[in-house]
């Protein structure tokens, strides 16, 4: 097999903070250095891309989002790039799709490369679906006659044939995404770079998209795919690249790469214990979530439940000093990031016991029929009065609901999950 993409020592440096006088003085220094024939003075500074601990070691204004990335990708490979938020995946994608250039090193590729960092790039709200198909296709690199040839196929795939001459601003968001994705799916490049755009649309359409992507890969095209959705990555990709702190930790067989990645999060996944240096979206000193996990009603740790089974979510938080009343929110959602349920104690009285310094354990009983699937829990602590977030950990604990009931309940009768929750309801024949 021939190599179609080669990354050679790719690094990317970003400046922190806003553009202003200080960046102007840096630019002037850079210019002077260049006129003297010297190297850019700011390339030597810059700290590793470890966002969560940047305060400890970094007083530098510059940060390396990527540092010395090397890899080769063969023709026909389907590569999944995985890693936590902030590992440098998106920056790498931007360089791969030529949206930005690397600060150092070079990327080489052969053939036509198309990138899908978002669906519907360049869609103009006032233009009809038809015009937008042509416009979007051309932006993605197709020729007019190619689009014209595939036009009927695109419309058929999108399922919005009836509205094709209506301005897209009148479309529902679902229709918009379908049409946009349909264009992208018919691109037919040698190399396709995709960000998590599949995390849109309903389940049925997502499956359709993944099938389409698989068929693209089968034709011998190379696909690079970035996602948080491990099951999709696992079923779709042949090899994987695991990134952390702007570096590649591992490249290899997809299953091995995913295992390596999971071991990284193993402690969290298996015990629900969240280390202090875990990536936290908000982090104000005062209170911190140290554990999020699920348990059976008997209190035993568990991450697989039967359909309709009642279960517990267990929380532990460290309150570091006496604080004002807080409130805690739990969100349940897809591992890819969309949330579908809020679990919250709205009564402010409840939180009175949590203001004192120390470790607090909370147990929450969930009594809902969650439809089969893999879900993850996001947790946050905020100040009741100001709304300031003390802590926010995303998708920290993952659990699965199967379609088989336990303890004599009813099984989930369908093969597809129609939504996320079967609402409690009373049925009567009148």
């Amino acid at each position: 097999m021939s190599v179609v993409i080669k990354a050679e020592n790719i690094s990317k440096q970003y400046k922190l903070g806003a553009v202003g006088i200080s960046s102007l003085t840096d630019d002037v220094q850079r210019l002077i250095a260049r006129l003297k024939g010297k190297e850019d003075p700011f390339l030597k500074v810059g700290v590793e891309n470890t966002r969560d601990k940047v305060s400890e070691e970094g007083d530098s204004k510059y940060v390396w989002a990527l540092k010395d990335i090397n890899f080769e990708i063969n023709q026909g490979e389907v590569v999944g790039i995985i890693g936590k938020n902030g590992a440098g995946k998106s920056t790498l994608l931007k360089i791969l799709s030529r949206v930005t250039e690397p600060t150092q090193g070079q990327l080489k590729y052969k053939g036509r490369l198309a990138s899908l960092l978002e669906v519907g790039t360049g869609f103009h709200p006032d233009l009809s679906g038809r015009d937008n198909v042509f416009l979007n296709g051309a932006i993605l690199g197709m020729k007019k006659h190619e689009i014209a040839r595939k036009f009927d196929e695109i419309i058929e795939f999108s399922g919005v044939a009836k509205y094709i001459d209506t301005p897209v601003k009148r479309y529902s968001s679902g229709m918009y995404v379908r049409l946009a994705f349909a264009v992208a799916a018919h691109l037919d490049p040698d190399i396709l770079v995709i960000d998590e755009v599949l995390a849109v649309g309903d389940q049925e359409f997502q499956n359709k998209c993944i099938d389409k992507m698989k068929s693209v890969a089968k034709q011998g095209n190379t696909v690079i795919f970035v996602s948080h959705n491990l099951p999709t990555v696992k079923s779709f990709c042949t090899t994987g690249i695991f990134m952390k702190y702007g570096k590649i930790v591992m490249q290899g067989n997809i299953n091995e790469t995913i295992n390596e990645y999971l071991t990284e999060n193993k402690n969290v996944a298996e015990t629900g214990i969240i280390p202090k240096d875990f990536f936290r979206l908000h982090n104000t000193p005062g209170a911190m979530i140290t554990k999020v996990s699920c348990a059976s009603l008997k209190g035993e740790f568990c991450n697989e439940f039967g359909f309709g089974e009642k279960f517990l979510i267990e929380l532990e938080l460290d309150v570091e000093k006496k604080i004002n009343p807080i409130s805690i929110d739990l969100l349940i959602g897809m591992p890819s990031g969309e949330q579908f349920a809020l679990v919250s104690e709205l009564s402010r009285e409840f939180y009175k016991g949590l203001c004192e310094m120390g470790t607090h354990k909370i147990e929450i009983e969930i009594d809902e029929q969650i439809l089969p699937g893999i879900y993850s829990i996001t947790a946050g602590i905020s100040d009741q009065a100001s709304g300031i977030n003390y802590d926010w950990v995303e998708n920290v604990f993952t659990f699965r609901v199967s379609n088989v009931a336990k303890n004599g309940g009813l099984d989930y009768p369908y093969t597809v999950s129609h939504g996320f929750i079967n609402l409690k309801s009373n049925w009567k024949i009148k």
Partner: protein
Amino acid sequence: MVEDWNIVEKGGAFNLRKIFKDLVDYKDLIYLFFKRDIKSSYQQTILGPLWLIIQPVFTSIVFTIVFGNIAKIPTPANISPFAFYLLGLSFWNYFADCFNKISGTFVNNSSVFGKVYFPRLAVPFSILLSGIFKFSIQFILFLSVYVYGVLFNGYTMHINMTLLLIPVYLMLLSLFALGLGLIVSSFTTKYRDLTMLVGFGVQLLMYATPVAYPFFTIKYTSVFYKLLSANPLTGLIEACKYGFTSNGLFSVKLLTVDTLIILLVLIIGMYIFSKVEKKFMDTV
């Protein structure tokens, strides 16, 4: 595959031939951008493209009142003042409109540029195309008023062979708008100060260009004469007027100097633009 490697790296050589080859590859995109701009401009307006005519008509009326009647600046006798203003405005509007829009290339398209690669120059070129479209309408308006004046108002027609050079003038105006616009748009990705300057700068520039008055109303000895001569637009706009009225400045020497200045600005613009387009996403 036996194709060559495409290389993405910092800097990279400034290769005009490759730039044009890329643009030709994406000519469909340029056309579709142009179509989008025209189609979307007049969505949900009642008068639609009529606005293209209304704007110069009203500006010419104001010019007739302010420059003609109040300031009493003379215009050539063989053309109605109204047609004279329309003539200058049609070319001026083309330049100003293209320059303004091209200046916003990076800032206005950052959401698209940040998501997908295509030759960024496709956007300025599509702006020039839309500009030509709008110019054609305004130019036809001028021609109608001009011919009407000759047929019914007793003005005499004094056209000459330099009229054939109008496409060349248009070309030079396009390249100048492109060159200046590329420079401004490149600088505004990081420092937005220039946006402020261009906003009113273009308006002021109109008064430093003989649009609303003939160049010959300025005394040969005055400072303004030298100042205006240094403006590459002066020679061009005057030459356009000369073709229709045989009255005005047509100097091959001045036009040659203008052309050289314009080409220089264009090369600088394309050079800076090609440097900035690869990394502007980090700063915009």
